[in-house]
């Protein structure tokens, strides 16, 4: 696990901020035309992302619904304390106790870009839209989850304590 990777800051210089704002403005006109630059910039500190991607805390109840929704893909690989759901995966660790094992900051980075912890991981980077190969037409330039969805899921996972 390359600890140097955690120190890399993604704070954007002024020029990029302006470009970012321009893209935001443009995306108001062309909502479907979201592109990689439309992702909220985030800063990695230590082995996590300390600040909420939306600037606000997520909603844990909504997060639970998202974790159980197949479209978010969590329970295709993970299992967890979800007695009402039959078809869970065992490709990845059980989410029970995730809130004990990881801080909110670590959970956020694990969702945003788990490859920073292990470059060979099979866990997708849920908040990334560049450097990918042959992305399906409907998904080009879009992260798997929105910033708000990441925050909701982080808020829920933090409640999973033994």
């Amino acid at each position, binding site marked *: 696990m390359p600890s140097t990777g955690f120190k890399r800051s993604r704070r954007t210089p002024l020029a990029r901020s302006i470009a970012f704002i321009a893209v935001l403005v443009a995306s108001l006109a062309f909502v479907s035309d979201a592109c990689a630059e439309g992702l909220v910039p985030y800063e990695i500190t230590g082995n996590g992302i300390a600040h909420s991607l939306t600037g606000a805390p997520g909603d844990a109840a909504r997060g639970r619904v998202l974790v159980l929704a*197949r479209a978010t*893909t969590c*329970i*295709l*690989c993970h299992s967890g304390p979800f007695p009402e759901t*039959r*078809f*869970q*995966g*065992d*490709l990845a660790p059980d989410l029970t106790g995730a809130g004990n094992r990881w801080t909110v900051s670590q959970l956020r980075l694990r969702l945003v870009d788990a490859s920073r912890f292990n470059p060979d991981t*099979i866990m*997708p*980077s849920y908040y990334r839209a560049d450097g*990918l*190969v*042959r*992305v*399906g*037409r*409907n*998904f080009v330039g*879009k992260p*798997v989850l929105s910033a708000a969805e990441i925050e909701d899921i982080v808020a829920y996972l933090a409640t999973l304590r033994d």
Partner: protein
Amino acid sequence: MIFWRAIAAATLFAATPALLAGEIPSDARRSGYSFMGPDTRAMQDDDTSNPGMLFVLDGEALWTRKAGSADKACADCHGDARDSMKGVAARYPAFDRALARPVTLDQRINLCRTNHQQATPLPYESRDILALSAFVAHQSRGVAIAAGDDPQAKPFIDQGRTLFTQREGQLNLACTNCHDDNFDRRLAGSPITQAQPTGYPLYRLEWQTLGSLERRLRSCMTGVRAQAYDYGAPELVALELYLMSRARGMPMETPAVRP
């Protein structure tokens, strides 16, 4: 202790010299059949309950039906498929010298239609191409897979292997991440297989019909949210060839049944 472990590791390494990282050792390969429950196995094993056999019967009828402006049936050149087609599907995709590339069994059937029957090619995944393909491949049931033996196929096998190990799509996953590294684990409750294509075309309960290996590959690509290659694309043929060569020696099961 460490010494003996080193010897054991060295022996293992020496015994499998051609194995690339992540590849499944030859004696550990398993058909998708072995991952299924008893009911689905029974459905495949009994020809009277195997829905794929309906396609095989349709294919048998098509085999002797004249088609195209040449007014010829498959049987007019190839005779009794039970003799002439035995073992053929086990060698596909096969290198075509005229085209200088490998072709799938479906493509070979359509090349026969256009070149020898002067008939229009059958669309991919149409009932007739699946039926003919199933009928031809059924003649190889129990025959050991032998695809990729032609030295000219090698660069295409290599291309297929590269594609198999290439991460792709919004979920950024390669075939190998699941089918070499995590078979027998469960994805959304279903066992992940080794992707040994022993029974195509096969009847998939999820599809409620027979389907080709290309259809299966395309649905995996869609699953990782990648742009699936078009039917017949050289990349899909290369992947199919790599998978068949990876399953070399395993017996054909066509028509297999899968969940």
